[in-house]
């Protein structure tokens, strides 16, 4: 049925917003992490959505998520007592901006909600269509 393609579009939107939420949660969880044994520091990541290339593609996957690293200089925190502090007493931490992450959380939840609304609208339409001619 045609209505199922509307469901697919909304489902890809929902999956995209879910991924954004997951990524934001990961950024927040790693906000205060330090370099690991190999000296790698956690890089804050972002989800970038690309629209499906053709219309036929829209029906399969309306939005194609990509996870990109937000290249940012590490945040230097002055903590001289920390075992990993450098000569000046600074330690590097991932440059996670809590305000940005909170904004991401809110927009992800609202975006998910909007996709659910769109799906419910398609469902209501289908159910109304099935009421045609009912006694």
């Amino acid at each position, binding site marked *: *049925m045609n209505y199922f393609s509307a469901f697919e579009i909304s489902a890809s939107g929902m*999956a995209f917003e*879910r991924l954004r939420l997951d990524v934001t949660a990961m950024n927040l969880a790693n906000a205060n992490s330090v370099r690991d044994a190999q000296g790698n520091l956690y890089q804050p990541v972002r989800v970038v959505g690309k629209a499906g290339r053709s219309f036929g593609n829209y029906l399969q996957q309306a939005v194609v998520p990509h996870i990109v690293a937000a290249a940012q200089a590490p945040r230097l925190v002055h903590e001289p007592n920390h075992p990993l502090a450098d000569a000046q007493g600074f330690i590097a931490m991932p440059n996670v901006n809590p305000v940005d992450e909170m904004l991401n959380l809110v927009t992800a939840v609202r975006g998910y909600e909007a996709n659910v609304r769109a799906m419910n609208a398609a*469902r209501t339409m289908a159910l109304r269509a099935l009421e045609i001619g009912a*006694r």
Partner: protein
Amino acid sequence: MSIEVIAATGAVAGKALSAAGALPSRPAPEASFETWLVQQFSATNAKLVEADQGVRRLALGEADNLHQVMIALEEAKLQFELVVQVRNRLVEAYQDILRMRI
């Protein structure tokens, strides 16, 4: 109702009758209503099984995401509703014929 309208009705009825008379000579259509109905039944069953498996996976904690399961449930519901409505119309038509005066 004016006479012209009645006459026009007669003309239409005549046409319908002649069309009905020509019916047996026409070859049976490739896809009959029956095959369509059977297809819809199997599609509905497939959707129901899919939804059931989705719920099962969710209960086992294997489902990737909640919305896919809910969408599968909705799709199964819609497909089932379509078949139910077609069945309702069929039964209505049957009862209409049954009530027909001979």
